[in-house]
């Protein structure tokens, strides 16, 4: 059989891979994408999207419980865990089909199978025992990552879960221990708490959501505790004893060792790149701590082989992967305006209740970097729209460089902040200063008005509180 030959072959069809494929094709490159499972990767099938569907169910349920507050009556409020999961799966399937369409529309060849590198300019794809070699002038590795597991606490899918199991529970657990308080951990804690589970979160560091600004962590802890979630910071799970239908966790805390017995445990202690069985080492590609090493253009040590997304390391975010996918494709095509990724322009979002979102430097990081900062805070208690929504917990914090007026970072917690953060992302990308942000007109009444107030507050002139 004649060998197929492409300008670019992309391995993995998550939000990094499929976006790279579309962009490469737009740039006139003959493109193929290899996927061993479903198009869309983790993000779409087992990550971002299905969890958002689950959290939407939780949100609606919480609102129903608060119906009276809004002058409504609802009786016999209940839920069907199976149907909640079903809806989430349907949402994921719909989007996976959408990617199929996108590939077709952009004339990207989709190759079903497991790929590995097979020498310079060659990819070998295996499917049902048959292998095929494909010629590739350039290769983009986008194989993503999987949950990191702690020794002796590996997930079994029954009592100990990773995010994947937590997304498709057979029944709602009555009690739950979440190890790790990053975005994934807090979203599941929030979800299961909404449906009445007794949730405990253990974080090894001294605050939850440790990558966020300290004030945000503090406010989040307060809000989660108010919702009845137990939080142990500076705690380490040392052992999990599995019972018949429960698990006893031995948690070392500042005060001593605590034993916590729960129905289920979710392990959310980070992720590790899918670097295995790809033939990376033979091509001289360097791997460190489970991630592929690349230069600022996402190129590996092997010329013409690029790697993007979770595979190359933090921040482990779909939109960062997509951005790198575009970057790698444009680099291959020799596009003029391609710029390396600046992580201080990558927003991060946590879709728990309350939501958390941020971009750029935290106040502490900005000071560490030597900036003299001006900080603004605008609490949602003073925002008309938030009061009307009945969601007044939280605030918007902005961090400016006093000297130049550069918006160094923005940090938000509260209603819909994951949708709001984009305003500051654009501001950072365009390098606006406080003057432009102050001069911009924000619509009333919106939550976004408080983005304006926060900027005004940083320079001592808030107008509405």
């Amino acid at each position: 059989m004649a060998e197929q030959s492409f300008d670019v072959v992309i391995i993995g069809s998550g939000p990094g891979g499929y976006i790279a494929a579309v962009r490469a094709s737009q740039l006139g490159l003959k493109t193929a994408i290899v996927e061993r499972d479903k198009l869309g990767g983790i993000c779409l099938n087992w990550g971002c999207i299905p969890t958002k569907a689950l959290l939407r169910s939780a949100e609606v349920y919480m609102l129903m419980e608060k119906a009276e507050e809004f002058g409504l009556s609802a009786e016999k409020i209940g839920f069907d865990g199976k149907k909640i999961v079903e809806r989430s799966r349907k949402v994921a399937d719909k989007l996976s089909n959408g990617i199929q369409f996108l590939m077709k529309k952009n004339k990207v060849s989709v190759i079903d199978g497991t790929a590995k590198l097979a020498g310079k300019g060659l990819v070998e794809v295996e499917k049902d025992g048959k292998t095929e070699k494909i010629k590739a002038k350039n290769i983009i590795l986008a194989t993503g990552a999987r949950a990191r597991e702690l020794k002796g606490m590996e997930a079994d899918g029954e009592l100990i879960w990773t995010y994947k199991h937590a997304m498709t529970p057979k029944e709602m657990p009555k009690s739950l221990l979440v190890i790790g308080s990053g975005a994934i951990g807090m979203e599941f804690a929030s979800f299961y708490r909404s449906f009445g589970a007794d949730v405990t979160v253990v974080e090894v560091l001294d605050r939850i959501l440790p990558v966020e600004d300290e004030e945000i962590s503090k406010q989040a802890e307060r809000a989660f505790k108010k919702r009845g979630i137990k939080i142990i910071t500076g705690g380490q799970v040392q052992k999990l004893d599995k019972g018949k239908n429960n698990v006893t966790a031995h948690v070392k805390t500042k005060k001593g060792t605590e034993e916590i017995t729960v129905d289920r445990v979710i392990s959310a202690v980070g992720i590790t790149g899918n670097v295995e069985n790809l033939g990376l080492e033979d091509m001289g590609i360097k791997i460190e701590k489970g991630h592929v090493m690349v230069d600022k253009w996402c190129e590996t040590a092997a010329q013409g082989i690029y790697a993007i997304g979770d595979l190359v390391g933090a921040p482990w975010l779909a939109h960062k992967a997509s951005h790198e996918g575009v970057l790698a494709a444009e680099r291959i095509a020799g596009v003029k305006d391609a710029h390396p990724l600046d992580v201080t322009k990558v927003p991060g979002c946590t879709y728990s209740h309350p939501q958390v979102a941020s971009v750029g430097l935290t106040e502490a990081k900005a000071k560490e970097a030597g900036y003299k900062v001006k900080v603004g805070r605008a609490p949602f208690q003073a925002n008309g729209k938030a009061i009307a929504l009945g969601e007044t917990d939280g605030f918007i914090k902005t961090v400016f460089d006093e000297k130049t007026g550069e918006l160094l970072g923005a940090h938000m917690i509260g209603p819909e902040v994951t949708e709001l953060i984009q305003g500051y992302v654009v501001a950072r990308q365009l390098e606006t200063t406080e003057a432009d942000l102050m001069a911009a007109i924000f619509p009333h009444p919106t939550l976004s008005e408080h983005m304006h107030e926060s900027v005004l507050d940083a320079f001592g002139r808030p107008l509405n509180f």
Partner: protein
Amino acid sequence: MPIPVTMPALSPTMEEGTLAKWSVKEGDKVGPGDVIAEIETDKATMEVEAVDEGTVGQLLVDEGTEGVPVNKVIAVLLEEGEDKSALDNFDPEAASPAPKKADGKKSEQKEEKEAKPEEKPAAKPAAKKEEAAPGKPDGKRIFASPLAKRIAEDKSIDLAALSGSGPRGRIVKKDVEEAKPGTKAAASAGGPSLAPSLDPRAFFEDGTYDEVPMDKMRKTIAKRLTQSKQEIPHYYLTVDCEIDELLRVRKELNERAPEGVKLSVNDFLIRAAALALKKVPEVNASFAGDSLLMHKHANVGIAVAIEGGLITPIIGKADEKGLAAISTEAKDLAARARERKLKPQEYEGGGFSISNLGMYGIKNFTAVINPPQSAILAVGAGEKRAVVKGDELVAATMMTCTMSCDHRVIDGALGARFLEAFKGFVEFPATMLM
């Protein structure tokens, strides 16, 4: 709605280009991927493909027009079902300054150009163009981010003196931070003037010569090399290498080489230079004003003569590549250079270059350094010469190499050490295996 087609940017440094040729005419149907025009930049000629489907409604720039700014609308496509009347109320963004024609006439045609097509209604009043804030000496608006403007003010930097690295040449924070405080706009923007101080036309009678306009590549060569000789304190080191052993090894390897691989002497020299750069890494550097950029990889440029000029494609990480790989890559780069099909990243940067005129029988010569590099090696022909070995007079194949060095980066002894290492690899090619 008609679809405007704009002048594409084909390289990171491209600001304008010459519309060399239209491949379509008004009324032609085009689809995505169809070639519609050829654009000539300073380094390459590239084809412009249609992105959308439609019928060519109007070509707004004549063939041969020079200096068409990036993003200027060059043509308008009509969508399905539209005819030329759709252009009546369509203003294809008349914002760019009018281009100069290649035929040497001055830019009086500016008005004529804008008024030309009768289908195009008197667009918008021209006043709109001039309203923007900070200006270049020629009154053009400068695009800069608010943050860049503020830092520039603080550091007393004239934005007109900078070129932006942001989208469409927008000046961003990074550009201003990298500029030296107090930078002022040069009287004539864009480095040394190209025109010689004496106008040669004064010395010759009309009709005794043909005046040929220079293309972009010729102009770039003139500008860059004038700049190099004016700014870089050049000095030269010469060494003779005996290459009989190298020729023997080359013959042996070529006899056993896989099909399609035929090593040239130059392939050996590229590898020798790369290894010498690794051995004497101080040579592999770029002068950056108040610092030196010490390059981590041995990226070796090879001067390739092409029609109308020359270009120096780069063999990246040549020290990590074997002779066969270098040979294949060099051939591919040279071939594409001749077709002017190189990507910008394939010829920009690099730490060192080799220029070989041996095939023309040149015994020795000196080359001009190609900034941001700090050295270039001029290689002469290999020829049998009478040399003294011990006390005997014997025949040996000798090749003279002259290295031009940037004295700001490379001192004499350092340059000499590099050449010593280079000569070692060339005369004992087996050591290149180590």
